[in-house]
């Protein structure tokens, strides 16, 4: 191959790497200090771009010079930094004590809110920013032109890395950041003002995201889709580099930049898969990323985030459960057709959320990619009935959990080798691979169009009949999973979650049990996916995508991660809320985001947890009714 081409291609890779590093460095620093997986980092990036396309042209009107351009970029970064401070002070500060998952949920609420606010403020049209003065041209390199601005970008990455190094090693703030990254308790022990440290960290992280966004405006127009487009890449970089490690992020960004620059030559259609495949490989080989360190096992015994104690239904609760099931089954007699449809969907999501709770609440395995198994089930069912086989619905519904279970077993084999945030990230990577395959392998999956015509068999085509079919299958599956939670297997999962060391020391193979749990939960999610496909009549990649994974997590958390049946309430509440809010306004994402944030603030233990707290208070007033 032409050497000039190789050089230019590699320069393109360096420019992308540099941009990616600036963004990811902020994410990794914030994670290192606060341990929050900040989904809103992509929103900060987007805000950086939007603010820059607003500010920079004004400055260029005053003085058309590179200095004015870069001043505008810096101002944008600082403004975003201040927005980060506002987010920290108004929201994150209030929830440092709630389970880490809720913090993640709150940041996802911010994503939804910012998306719609950006539409409201800047309008829906993509806004192309000005080019940098004196850097509009191409520079002749080995006989080919290369954009001068990208040469500058290539320099920005190492510059930011250098400045961060100085900050980390030459200032007290930086030393504290490093200390907190290594051991969060130590900072508390040193008597540091933790609130101020966190505020400053958010300022730094958000500024870096804003800087990354502002630097992009000569290349990419500011648009309302850039937040989620960048956040997955930024996650990949931080995870490959090792969460909390700035040099690791730099290394990972370089790796990904070159992989993309040359990967598109070899696999022009597999770009989405490549980066996630790289992440999966890195995590399997180096479970803490390239330069990351294992989580400091400080020997503390923390209460796990999940189900803490199991007990049976008390008589009134059993009665209530019976009434609930009876009311549900009577719904087709009472409600209209639309209500039946929504109730069917709630039942399906309740099963999916419950299967996720089986992993998260019982096993302590936080999956960011549970939609992958929901989607695998839906695709297996959908492709079976519409494909050359024209299989009957019953067979398809049988195949759905089997296919999803097989997928979960395959991915789970690698996933259960990790723990904590790295495990969550690997589930995300595998889910993205499933998504990319569904999205891009048009010949088999129908691509983003998906496949239509996935309707129930004639005997179940009637909506009421299908509702009862779903009710029967979903309730049986939920009861089955519930039974497992109360069985030695469920106890073993909780044991492994509470103390893997103790579990191994009494002969319980932690990985093997988690693998089985992952497979079972995947199969249950797949069953839900199969039911969903027939309910909707179609399958498409959104069934495997991140937003659905997040929705399922929201259901679990809103319902109450410490309760066995809470996720069912969460599913009902969340889906009914979405259904109620969507017709009201096209800014329904804003309302949904605010509702999520409000829930996190008001009910940090979820709805069922909140109900219990109230009951607990009443219980104290009447000692006779004290909780068991």
């Amino acid at each position, binding site marked *: 191959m*032409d050497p000039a*081409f190789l050089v*230019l*291609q590699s320069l*393109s*890779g360096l420019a992308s790497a540099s941009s990616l590093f600036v963004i990811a460095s902020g994410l990794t620093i914030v994670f290192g200090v606060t341990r929050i997986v900040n989904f809103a980092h992509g929103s900060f990036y987007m805000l950086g771009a939007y603010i820059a396309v607003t500010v920079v042209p004004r400055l260029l009107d005053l003085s058309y010079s590179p200095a004015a351009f870069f001043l505008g970029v810096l101002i944008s970064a600082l403004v975003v930094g201040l927005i980060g401070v506002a987010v920290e002070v108004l929201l994150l500060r209030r929830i440092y004590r709630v389970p880490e998952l809720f913090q993640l949920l709150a940041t996802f609420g911010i994503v939804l809110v910012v998306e*719609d606010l950006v*539409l409201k403020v800047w309008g829906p*049209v993509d*806004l*192309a920013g000005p080019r940098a003065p004196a850097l509009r041209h191409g520079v002749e390199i080995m006989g*080919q*032109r*290369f*954009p*001068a601005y990208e040469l500058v970008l290539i320099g920005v990455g190492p510059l930011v890395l250098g400045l961060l190094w100085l900050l980390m090693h030459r200032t007290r703030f930086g030393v504290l950041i490093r200390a907190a990254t290594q051991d969060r308790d130590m900072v508390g022990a040193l008597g540091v003002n933790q609130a101020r440290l966190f505020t400053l960290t958010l300022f730094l992280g958000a500024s870096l995201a804003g800087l990354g966004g502002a630097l992009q405006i000569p*290349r990419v*127009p500011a648009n309302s*889709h850039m937040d989620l487009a960048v956040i997955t890449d930024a996650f990949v970089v931080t995870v490959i580099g090792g969460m909390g490690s700035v040099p690791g992020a730099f290394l990972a960004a370089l790796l990904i930049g070159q992989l*993309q620059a040359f990967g598109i*030559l070899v696999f*022009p*259609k597999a770009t989405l898969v490549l980066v996630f495949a790289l992440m999966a490989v890195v995590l399997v080989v180096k479970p803490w990323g390239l330069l990351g360190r294992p989580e400091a096992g400080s020997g503390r015994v923390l*209460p796990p985030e999940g189900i*803490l*104690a199991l007990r049976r239904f*008390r008589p*009134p*609760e059993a009665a209530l459960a019976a*009434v609930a*099931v009876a009311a*549900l089954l009577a*719904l087709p007699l009472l*409600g209209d057709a639309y*209500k039946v*449809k*929504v109730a069917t*969907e709630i039942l399906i999501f309740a099963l999916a959320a419950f299967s996720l709770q089986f992993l998260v609440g019982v096993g302590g395995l936080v999956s960011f990619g549970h939609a992958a198994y929901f989607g695998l089930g839906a695709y297996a069912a959908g492709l079976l009935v519409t494909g050359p086989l024209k299989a009957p619905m019953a067979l398809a519904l049988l195949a759905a959990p089997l296919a999803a279970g097989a997928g979960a077993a395959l991915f789970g084999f690698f996933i259960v080798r990790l723990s904590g945030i790295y495990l969550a990230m690997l589930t995300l990577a595998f889910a993205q691979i499933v998504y990319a395959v569904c999205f*891009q392998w048009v010949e088999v999956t129908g691509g*983003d169009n*998906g496949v*239509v015509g996935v*309707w129930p068999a004639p005997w179940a085509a009637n909506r009421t009949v299908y509702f009862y079919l779903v009710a029967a299958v979903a309730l049986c599956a939920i009861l089955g999973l519930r039974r497992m939670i109360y069985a030695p297997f469920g106890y073993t999962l909780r044991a492994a979650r509470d103390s893997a060391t103790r579990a191994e020391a009494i002969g319980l193979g932690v990985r093997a049990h988690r693998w089985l749990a992952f497979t079972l939960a995947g199969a249950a999610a797949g069953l839900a996916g199969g039911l969903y496909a027939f309910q909707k*009549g*179609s399958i498409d*990649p*959104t069934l495997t995508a991140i937003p659905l994974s997040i929705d399922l997590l929201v259901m679990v958390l809103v319902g109450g991660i410490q309760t066995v049946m*809470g996720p069912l*309430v969460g599913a*009902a509440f969340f889906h*009914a809320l979405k*259904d*109620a809010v*969507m*017709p009201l306004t*096209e*800014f*329904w994402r804003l309302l949904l985001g605010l509702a999520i944030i409000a829930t996190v603030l008001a009910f940090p233990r979820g709805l069922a947890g*909140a109900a219990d707290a109230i009951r607990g208070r009443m219980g104290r007033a009447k000692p006779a009714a004290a909780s*068991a």
Partner: protein
Amino acid sequence: MTIRPVSRRAVVGGLAAAPFGLSASRVAAQGAGPIRVGELNSYGRMAAFAVPYRNAMQLAEAAINKAGGIKALGGRPLEIVFRDDGSTPGDAARVAEELVTRENVAFLCGTFLSNVGLAVADFANQRKVLFLATEPLTDALTMGSGNRYTFRVRPNTYMQTRMLVDAVKDRGVRRWAIVAPNYEYGQSAAANFKRLMAAAVPGFEVVGEQFPALGKVDAGATVGALAQTRADGLFNVLFGADLTAFVREGNTRGLFEKRTVASLLTGEPEYMIPLGDETPEGWVTTGYPWETIDTPGHREFVAAYRARFNDTPRLGSLLGYVVVHMIRDMLERAQSTETERLIGALEGLTSETIAGPVTMRALDHQSTLGAWVGETALNGRQGTMTKVRYADGAHYMFPEAEVRAARKA
């Protein structure tokens, strides 16, 4: 550390109550009062396209109602019920159900994303409701996945590609490179282009293809890889933010110099406005150069649109305006809101629209609405189109034999 088990009572009660908490149903009989039309679209996520579209629909709705409503139905006015489709097929199917069951609409129209359009089309087929798909481009909607309840207004991917092929086939360019977003629309446009060019241009060859991920184009690497192919022609399917990034990088690196570029949709204001003064010159493209069009009624439409919304019309605006007038004509002809009568009226219906006469072909339920083909040019700091001609969709439809083969399956 104390651990308190959580009550199941709250859990179970909440679950039981949830379905009943949904809003109460509103039923308006579809026999008197306004004729209700259910329009679902991505007004939130795809606002750049869907909002101008909705604006024009409201404009047309008001004009028709002011002129006396649907005369064949005793002057009943039109009432369009707008709903966000959530931009996913799952949400859209539920919203469609809500429109049909709760809002009691006579039929459905709208959708932007192809997968949403296909899901709603399939829903329409199941529920035996008419669905007028307005914006989705995928060929499948009227071909392999077509059904008798679904009609499509906008010229599909095949038609628009064929218009471009017609415009470039005599330029003597044989070596082509293709760049397209990696999803169904991009892949099917690329496949159509290859097929049509191979038939039209002797010695046609594709010397390179790039399929960047939708919304995540790595412009530098993609432009570098395309330049390396040394192609004489470039067929572009990128749009939106991907297109802007690609054009800037390509301009700087000189990718488009001395090359023939054929580009789908780039002339639509939705995509051209963000390009601004970076709009490349001389690209052969399909689009909607509203300022140059003077078909009957179009100038009035532009004037009315600008007056009411203080904005220039987009392609979505044209489409929304055309669609509502097609709906009016359909209702006048059907003299009913009953689905079978509507289908009968819409098949073969010819409407005089501001874009010219548009016929809904009965064979595949694809309208003959065309597009304007021309070359991109800079007019001050804004892009525009020159050498424009209206390509009437009637000349670019799928061949009848292909339709029969595809729709039989």
